[in-house]
């Protein structure tokens, strides 16, 4: 199942890229499509963050991960590079679990 997901994502993402380079612009250049395409990553990423940080299975949980996310916000406000943001989020959550 995992391999199927890997292949589906790989082939699908490639076809989405190829379509962009191949399709005449008129269809997708409509304003509504632009808006949706602009907002879709925002909604998905935000949903991913919420689920990733505040849930375990089917339960809502507040734990060390939320501290990690808060520290990530601070790192981003300080314009830290990607790897630093990820690292301090992990480090702070691990430290909270130690105490």
């Amino acid at each position: 199942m995992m391999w199927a997901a890997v292949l589906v994502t790989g082939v699908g993402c490639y076809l989405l890229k190829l379509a962009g380079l191949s399709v005449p612009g008129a269809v997708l250049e409509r304003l509504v499509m632009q808006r949706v395409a602009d907002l879709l990553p925002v909604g998905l990423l935000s949903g991913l963050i919420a689920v990733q940080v505040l849930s375990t299975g089917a339960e809502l949980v507040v734990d060390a991960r939320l501290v990690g996310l808060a520290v990530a916000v601070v790192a981003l406000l300080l314009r830290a590079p990607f790897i630093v943001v990820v690292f301090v989020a992990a480090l702070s959550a691990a430290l909270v679990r130690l105490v």
Partner: protein
Amino acid sequence: MNLAPDPEPALDRAERSRIVRDALGVGIASGAYGLSFGALSVAGGLSIAQTCALSLLVFTGASQFALIGIVASGGSPLSGALTGLLLGTRNTLYGLRVGPLLGWRGWRRTVAAHALIDETTAMSVNRSTRAAARMGYVSTGVALFVLWNLATVVGALAGEAVGDPRAYGLDAAVGGAFLALLWPRLAARRNQLVAVLAAVVALGLVPVTTAGVPVLAAGGVAVLVGAVRQRSIPDEPTLGGEDPDSGGHESGGRE
């Protein structure tokens, strides 16, 4: 690296080396991102081979992170794949923008399509000539593909050596990674509202649906807001007036 006969004058050496230098810089920056992807993917339960296959075949960071994030939190691989595909639609719009600029046909376009992502778009849309746009696209694409995949392997091996992901806060790292991807998109007020609404809807669905569904519903919120706004304001004065770069690349070059 000139992939096609070109009607415009060739690039001079100085510009060429400047573009290649920039491309290497972008590649190295995303290499760091590839390290975290590799480590988190293995921590999320994928094998090293699956992790490497994702970077080789999918080659668009946000989609890859979405897939492993959903699988790590107990969602089905296919709902992870679906979320990854939805995030991948953004590359289609990049193609509409850079396609006419690059002007490739046939096998060149077929190959070039694989590298159509945030960074290559950012490194080619701002060029004044087709030769420079192609140079930016190809050099960034090659640098990224090589470094991204190398970094994935190294990260995956390191992730496996580390062991229990929770002890090192790696589960919290995934949230941090998604936030870093979202961050550059939060400048516009409308995007902030959608982000909050999507998070609330996703959390509301967590207790009552199977894993994977809440995230897809969060994407649905974005689609609804995008569509409804269009209907309620039929005569928008300028195309994407409040968000001039709508549908385009992020200046940070991150996915």
